[in-house]
């Protein structure tokens, strides 16, 4: 039993640490692959992976007195692994691309000044309705469904300033009333639900509010034409070069963790098979 406490237990800790490193890097690689896959998706926001060490542990050394009274002496602290804590969407503005389609819209955050009250710059979103729920999106590639309603390519209703679905006049050219544009300074509280759509998961009182009603808009005398462009789309904000570089790094980190795991394996092999072998 002594050996478990002194030796093998410590070795196993390292095995799990390097294994956790492999798992975390694999998850990070998946996140990066997904970013890369969406390099052509309008309004897509790339996600940044945040890795975090396992909570710290205090490591003790056990000393045995002649009277076999165990005395513990602290060595120091140790993280025993790493995990992918979260994927943080980067809401940096994507480039605008002209499409000439009058059901395409792009939002431009860069036109917004920094809020003097909070010293933060906010982000803008369109509102769409799926079932009864209101969701948010940056993908302004809309279409008119067979019932004449303005929807996303996924069939969610696009909402106007009164948060009502929009019936498009088709008599001549489609006429689209002003869209609801939401403003928030905490875009991190929006979680992805796929198809370019986000759900607000933060405090219900702080959810995106109509831009025209914000003090920022009124005080700075902003104009809606500065923040929304019809006939344009916002391109994905994925930086393919940076993503590729990071994928290579992540791959090598995965490999390094595998090597460490192999080293542990060899040590264990020695312990199991060679120590105490009678030649």
């Amino acid at each position, binding site marked *: 039993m002594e050996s478990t406490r002194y030796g093998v237990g410590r070795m196993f800790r390292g095995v799990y640490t390097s294994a956790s490193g492999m798992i975390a890097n694999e998850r990070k690689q*998946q996140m990066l692959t*997904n970013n890369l*896959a969406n390099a052509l998706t*309008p309004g897509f926001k790339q996600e940044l992976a945040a890795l975090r060490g396992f909570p710290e542990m205090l490591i003790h050394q056990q000393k045995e007195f002649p009277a076999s009274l165990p005395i513990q002496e602290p060595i120091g602290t140790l993280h025993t692994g790493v995990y*992918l804590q979260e*994927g943080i969407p980067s809401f940096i503005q994507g480039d605008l691309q002209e499409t000439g389609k009058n059901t395409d819209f792009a939002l431009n955050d860069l036109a917004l000044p920094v809020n003097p009250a909070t010293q933060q710059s906010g982000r803008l979103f369109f509102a769409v309705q799926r079932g009864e729920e209101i969701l948010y999106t940056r993908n302004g*590639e809309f279409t008119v469904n067979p019932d004449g309603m303005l929807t996303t390519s996924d069939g969610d209703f696009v909402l106007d300033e009164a948060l009502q679905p929009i019936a498009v006049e088709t008599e001549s050219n489609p006429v689209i009333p002003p869209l609801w544009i939401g403003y928030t300074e905490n875009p991190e509280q929006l979680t*992805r639900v796929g198809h370019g759509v986000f759900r607000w998961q933060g405090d219900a009182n702080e959810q995106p509010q109509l831009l025209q009603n914000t003090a920022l808009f009124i005080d700075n005398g902003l104009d809606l034409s500065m923040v929304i462009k019809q006939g344009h789309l916002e391109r994905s904000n994925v930086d393919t070069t940076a993503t*590729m570089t990071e994928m290579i790094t992540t*791959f090598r980190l995965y490999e390094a963790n595998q090597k460490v795991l192999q080293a542990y394996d060899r040590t264990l092999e020695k312990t199991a098979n060679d120590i105490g072998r009678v030649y």
Partner: protein
Amino acid sequence: MNPSLLTAASTLSQLQRKMDIVSNNIANVNTPGYKGRQASFHDVLSQTVVNQMNQPEEIGRVTPLGVRMGLGAKLSATSISITQGNEVVTDRDLDLMINGVSTWFRTRSLTDGSDEVTYTRHGALQLLPNPGNGNEVILTTADGRSLLDVNDQSIMFVAGYERLAVNEQGTLQVAYPTGQSLTFQLSLAKITRPDLLESIGDSQFRLNGNVDDFVNNGTLALLDLSNGNVNGENISIKQGSLETSNVELTHEMTELMTTQRAIQFQGRAISMADQMMGLANSIRG
């Protein structure tokens, strides 16, 4: 299985479809009246990984709990671009060009016996002998569908004419050496929601559904240019000209290159995922 492998593989096949659409646009860069298509993408529904769901333990976290992993991109829709193509002068009497977006010639098949009206902007017309009457010819499109007049009839007249003229209002006048002449009024359709048009090949499009419904909800309007009922829009017919394809080669080449690069990125991601699986596989050994 390494999930990035699946993400990259599925995205690769979706990008291939975009490649197909771009290639088709490029292939039709010289097709009169061709309207380009654009492909658009959206990200695929995320899968939530539940790890460490205890908020107080998650120090420094900025997003709500859970990790939402995306699974690549998917082709969400293709849309047709209805912009007007350029004019190319051919000086051929049977070449007609529609000047005005979203406006289409109405045609009907002569052979399959159906009443279905299809729409085209391919104005390179021809005269085919009328199978029912050997002295007559029928005005048809290049693929042999008869062009309709405002009474929904095929345009048929006795061969041996001297002159065939179409004015800006779409009135076709056939003059004979004897001094007689016949007039026909071409029927046009204005379709305000081009996304409902379904391409059926041979530069023809179909509106899937009941024609009356489309007329009632304003999607489809039948135009008789000689009546001037064109809602103040400037629509006219030009004889001796064809409308070129509205595909911009520069734009399509750019799309082709970015798509090709995106495919390469996915290929690289697949190979990385494969190597990672190889590493996992060779921990022991």
